[in-house]
């Protein structure tokens, strides 16, 4: 069977009431890709992810997920999501860490069914993956922002999605844990064939784990292998972004494509 791209955007545009945010975006994400989505603040990264997730509809253009039009795509449990502002939830909410992570299985279990036989094991494994298993029975509101963020990552991992969409997931997580978090993503990507889309401003830290880069600023200015991105000139990048951006300088450790 020919491989269909997991995500395909065809000429997608989007505008909020009056502001044009995305113009003519065409992008394919293939199975196994580890894509870093880069762009300055307000460039439309979160908006693009929300369109992919079906939270908003494009003003024009088509989106296909796993080869199906996004608006008829039903198997949303194949897609895991960590939003940019996960900590915007009501912090007085009476829920344990375990309950929050288990809620990531809701779609996978399906309507009218109560739980999976190995649900508890899956939840604990996801918590171990993010190093939060010691907090399973704590109240979510009593954790620090970074700890909460790790719990939300576990919630996305628990359903073992084929595609993981992460919108600046490491904000608020300390340096050491960021490293082990990216190690974990790289491992899921390599050994479990989990496709990743990662929005980040911290290109240096992820540079030797990602396979592809897309540069977005209202439209896609570049999409390709990471090595090709590395060979772009600073002037080129500045022209796209309108200001200086940090570039990846990790040439020694690079994998060859």
């Amino acid at each position: 069977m020919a491989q269909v791209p997991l995500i395909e955007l065809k000429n997608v545009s989007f505008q909020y009431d009056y502001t044009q945010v995305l113009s003519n975006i065409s992008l394919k994400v293939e199975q196994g890709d580890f894509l870093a989505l880069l762009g300055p603040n307000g460039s439309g990264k979160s908006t693009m992810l929300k369109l992919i997730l079906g939270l908003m509809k494009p003003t024009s253009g088509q989106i296909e997920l796993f080869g199906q039009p996004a608006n008829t795509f039903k198997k949303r449990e194949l897609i895991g999501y960590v939003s940019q502002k996960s900590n915007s939830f009501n912090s007085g909410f009476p829920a344990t860490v375990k309950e929050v992570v288990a809620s990531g299985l809701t779609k996978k279990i399906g309507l009218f069914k109560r739980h999976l036989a190995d649900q508890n094991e899956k939840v604990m494994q996801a918590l171990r993956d993010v190093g939060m298993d010691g907090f399973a029975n704590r109240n979510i509101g009593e954790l620090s922002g970074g700890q909460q963020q790790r719990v939300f990552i576990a919630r996305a991992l628990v359903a073992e999605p084929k595609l993981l969409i992460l919108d600046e997931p490491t904000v608020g997580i300390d340096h050491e844990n960021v490293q082990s978090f990216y190690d974990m993503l790289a491992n899921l990507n390599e050994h479990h064939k989990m496709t990743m889309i990662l929005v980040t401003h911290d290109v240096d830290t992820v540079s030797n784990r990602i396979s592809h880069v897309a540069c977005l600023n209202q439209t896609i200015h570049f999409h390709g292998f990471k090595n090709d991105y590395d060979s772009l000139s600073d002037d080129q990048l500045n022209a796209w972004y309108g200001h200086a951006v940090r570039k990846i300088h990790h040439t020694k450790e690079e994998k060859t494509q």
Partner: protein
Amino acid sequence: MISSILHYEFLQNAFLSGIIIGIIAPLLGVFIVVRRLSLIADALSHVTLAGIAGSLYLSQTFTGLALLNPLYLGIVASVSGSVLIERLRRLYKHYEELAIPIIMSGGIGISAIFISLAKGFSTDLFSYLFGSVSAVSRQDLFIVVVIALLVIAFIYLFYKELFVLSFDDEYAKASGLPAKWIHLLFMIVTALVIAASMRIVGILLVSSLMTLPVAASIRIAKGFKQAILYAIIFGETAVIAGLVSAFYLDLAPGGTIVVISILILLVVIVGKKIAMSVRA
């Protein structure tokens, strides 16, 4: 007390309805409070009043309707109110709370018209406003049982979806859950619980039975299931103690139930403060 309950049907009706409501109102109340919809429960109860007042007026005016149980029109009014609120909330996306005063004043306004049209159902109306130990009929009890079964089935079937929806609305939508439908069902079920509870606690105090036990429980609960359990324990305690004291002191049960709920809340708040300062 026990022998009176065995003796008098009206007491059986009141206590059985009370025990059932003591479970379903706080059970649903937990979801209402964490989703910050407490005021909606208040608005809906006033819409229910419009249905009740309308029904009382109709049964006074048209002899053919004399035996119509006002609860039915009350249920119709509160369910329509819940659907309307949803409509309005979507219309005023950025001012969602605007739906509440619109619906609430609408409900009170219509009630006022019916009440002034019909002259003199003051005692009946009083029992609808503040609850009653003696006015609960077998038919009322039957309606309460049916509504309770619906509510419990709804929560049982949609527990995990309701949890996701309450905790993180955006995530629920991104997971492809039918958030809109579940939310609409939730609003309708809320309307039903309000109609069911009204006979015991009264329209003006219905929302308190959905919120006060929850306010106490979320002070001390670590998890969601625990919050539900504590809320039901507090709610049930308030209802039973409230009904007993209302019966002996000849008071409106709505009043006694709410006052006891507030006492429970105070005990929990103060108790937690003390427990924390002891630990510190």
